[in-house]
């Protein structure tokens, strides 16, 4: 029987779920299965490294976190074994679920994103290419929705239209101050840094710099527009490349390597070809460096990179 892009049967007997997933589908099921395998390898490996990096941060909880990190490592080894990949994802899912509960309510948003992605790569039944195609569509939808919501939330809170939030961060956070020193005069940065954010009436967190305001608005506009490209067949590649560009830009201002690695790998799922597999060696270098730095063997501090 002819198949829809994510593998369901023809249009006349498609369910609402089939139609929804078809929007972000398009590959033959076996191609989709390979793409999901590649992403699953990255995801479980990423989680295992993160699990070990958590340990020094909470030495009092090592009795719980160390066994979880060990289980995650076993899952990371299993995910490269053809018949163990789906089970590895299920094991990693259980570990991350435990970590979300342990860190609740302070769990970072990218931990929830990791959890959602793990559910999607753990659900396919081994050897079922139709499930894998649905998982690929689910992952792409997740990437587009998360990007869209980050933009929509900025609209809801209204602190980007005149650059107020970024002005506050330029004074509050060294990373932001460093990045914005090219568009804001030193005296203005000094003024922003001197404002007491814990005092009612402190401000104004507003700057007289058109470039700064344009950059602030460009962020939420890009976050709202790129998902539309991602979910259109013709614009998919441009949407993914634009998303990767946005991630790089965000790293210049706010170093969030953990979120960036996860999100860039989600965006790579929109490109034709096995880009997740191609990117894995580079990701491994970052992982090895982070673990080496955490152990004190290499320079740097993974905490400062927000890789956790």
């Amino acid at each position, binding site marked *: 029987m002819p198949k829809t892009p994510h593998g369901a049967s023809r249009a006349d007997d498609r369910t609402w*779920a089939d139609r929804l997933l078809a929007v972000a589908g398009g590959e033959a099921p076996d191609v989709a299965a390979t793409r999901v395998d590649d992403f699953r390898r990255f995801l479980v490996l990423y989680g295992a490294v993160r699990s070990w990096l958590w340990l020094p941060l909470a030495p009092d909880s090592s009795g719980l976190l160390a066994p979880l990190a060990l289980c995650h490592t076993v899952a990371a080894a299993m995910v490269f074994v053809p018949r163990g990949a789906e089970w590895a994802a299920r094991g990693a899912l259980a570990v991350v679920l435990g970590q979300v509960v342990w860190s609740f309510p302070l769990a970072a948003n990218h931990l929830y994103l990791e959890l959602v992605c793990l559910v999607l790569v753990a659900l396919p039944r081994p050897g079922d290419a*139709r*499930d894998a195609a649905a998982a690929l569509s689910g992952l792409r939808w997740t990437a587009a929705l998360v990007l869209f919501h980050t933009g929509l939330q900025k609209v809801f809170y209204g602190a980007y239209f005149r650059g107020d939030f970024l002005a506050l961060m330029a004074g509050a956070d060294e990373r932001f101050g460093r990045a914005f020193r090219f568009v804001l005069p030193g005296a203005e940065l000094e003024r922003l840094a001197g404002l007491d954010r814990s005092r009612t009436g402190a401000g104004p967190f507003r700057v007289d710099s058109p470039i700064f305001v344009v950059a602030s608005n460009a962020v939420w506009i890009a976050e709202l527009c790129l998902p539309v490209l991602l979910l259109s067949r013709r614009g998919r590649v441009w949407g993914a490349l634009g998303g990767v560009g946005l991630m790089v830009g965000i790293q210049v201002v706010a170093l969030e390597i953990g979120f960036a690695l996860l999100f860039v790998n989600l965006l790579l799922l929109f490109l034709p070809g096995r880009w997740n597999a191609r990117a894995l060696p580079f990701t491994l270098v970052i992982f090895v460096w982070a673990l080496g730095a955490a152990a004190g063997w290499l320079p740097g501090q993974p905490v400062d990179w927000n890789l956790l």
Partner: protein
Amino acid sequence: MSARRKEPPSRRANRAPLFAAIVVIVALWPFVHRGLVLSHDIDPWRLGGFAMYTTYQRTIVGFFEVTGAGLRVVQEGELPEPVREVLTRFRIRRSALGTWESPDEAVRALHAARPELEHLVVAIQRLWLDPATAHIASEKKLLPYVAGTPLDAEAPPGP
């Protein structure tokens, strides 16, 4: 295609609704999250609403003893370590969960450690960046307790 990738037998159930349900949850949760920020003062940066780096919000919690001369700060440094931990946990959870996190447990622990502090007030101040003015705005709540038990009515905000 490898043997592992063969099409499934037609009798296998279609799991598309499961995958689609996850997509629907990811699509809808941030709207619920926004509602919870408005209704319960939860932290926009937490609980998976993808509203990190959107705005500034901070919650400051203080524990006060009611005296004839007014409110006096409870000296937390003099409290036993386990009680201090309960108060710290409350601060963290209140900041993230907003009004969902009641101070009752923290006050009970405080009262158990210092029974002489019969009349207590928990002051909770929420500060945020007001985009209308580009200044820090705030809202203060004073929650009165007698002998570790909350009074029904919330006290009017103090100065």
